[in-house]
């Protein structure tokens, strides 16, 4: 695929997924934590019914970077683990596939919290 089109699709799909989140915030007063949770669960479902994989093929980072991508990663991990280990795999695949993301967030979070001082928002 043409390199320009590749980045175009990443921008468009990624941007659209974020715009949908913004519409939800503006219209439904859903709190940010609920949006994050819904996105991950939606990603699991879309991944499970096979809709998300083609989107990743098309948009690359535009589909994997939003949290729906994290959800689809969970479903992919579970599917592979069930194929390999049977029912036990249902309890393995999610964390295996999410391992890098969660570990990185914990570790970098810890380091950042140790290095930086708690601070204030804009204006101050």
């Amino acid at each position, binding site marked *: 695929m043409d390199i320009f089109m590749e980045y175009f699709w990443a921008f468009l799909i990624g941007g659209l997924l974020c715009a949908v989140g913004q519409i939800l915030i503006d219209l439904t007063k859903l709190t940010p934590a609920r949006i994050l949770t819904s996105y991950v669960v939606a990603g699991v479902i879309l991944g499970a019914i096979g809709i998300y994989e083609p989107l990743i093929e098309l948009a690359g*980072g535009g589909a994997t970077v939003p949290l729906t991508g994290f959800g689809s990663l969970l479903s992919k991990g579970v599917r592979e683990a069930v194929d390999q280990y049977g029912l036990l795999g249902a309890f393995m695949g999610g964390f295996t596939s*999410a391992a890098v993301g969660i570990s990185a967030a914990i570790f970098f979070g810890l380091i950042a919290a140790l290095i930086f001082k708690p601070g204030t928002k804009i204006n101050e």
Partner: protein
Amino acid sequence: MNISNQEYGELAKRVSPPSSMTKTIPMAFVIGGAICVLGEALLNMYQALGFDRDNAGALTSMTLIFLSALLTGLKLYDRIAQFAGAGTLVPITGFANSVVSPALDFKTEGFVLGLGAKMFTIAGPVIVYGISASIIYGIIYYIFKVLNGYV
């Protein structure tokens, strides 16, 4: 009070300014899209360095999470988020921000009960429901396989 709660609620709705969606949605689109383009660029870079697609994807997530942790520590992430809205919330960087910010904030209450215990106050539900949904899918997928005679 000489006004019913219903009437009062309607009055509240009438005078409350709505979010200016003509501004918030394009901002979310552009900044969210830009973070995804950065992700795509990182993905290509790691693949060019010889990693396979899955590992390049993992490294991309790791890099974005690192950048988000750094920007959160520098108190820049929440500033960008004021303009970006869901554009900085929905990408994986938003997840990282939701882990790093309480850790940083509750450091004053101690390393164990503050930083450690509060780290997942916002992101916790994401993991609880994400992992649970994946387990349910795994069980359904397994039953489906059994019924179709694959196992």
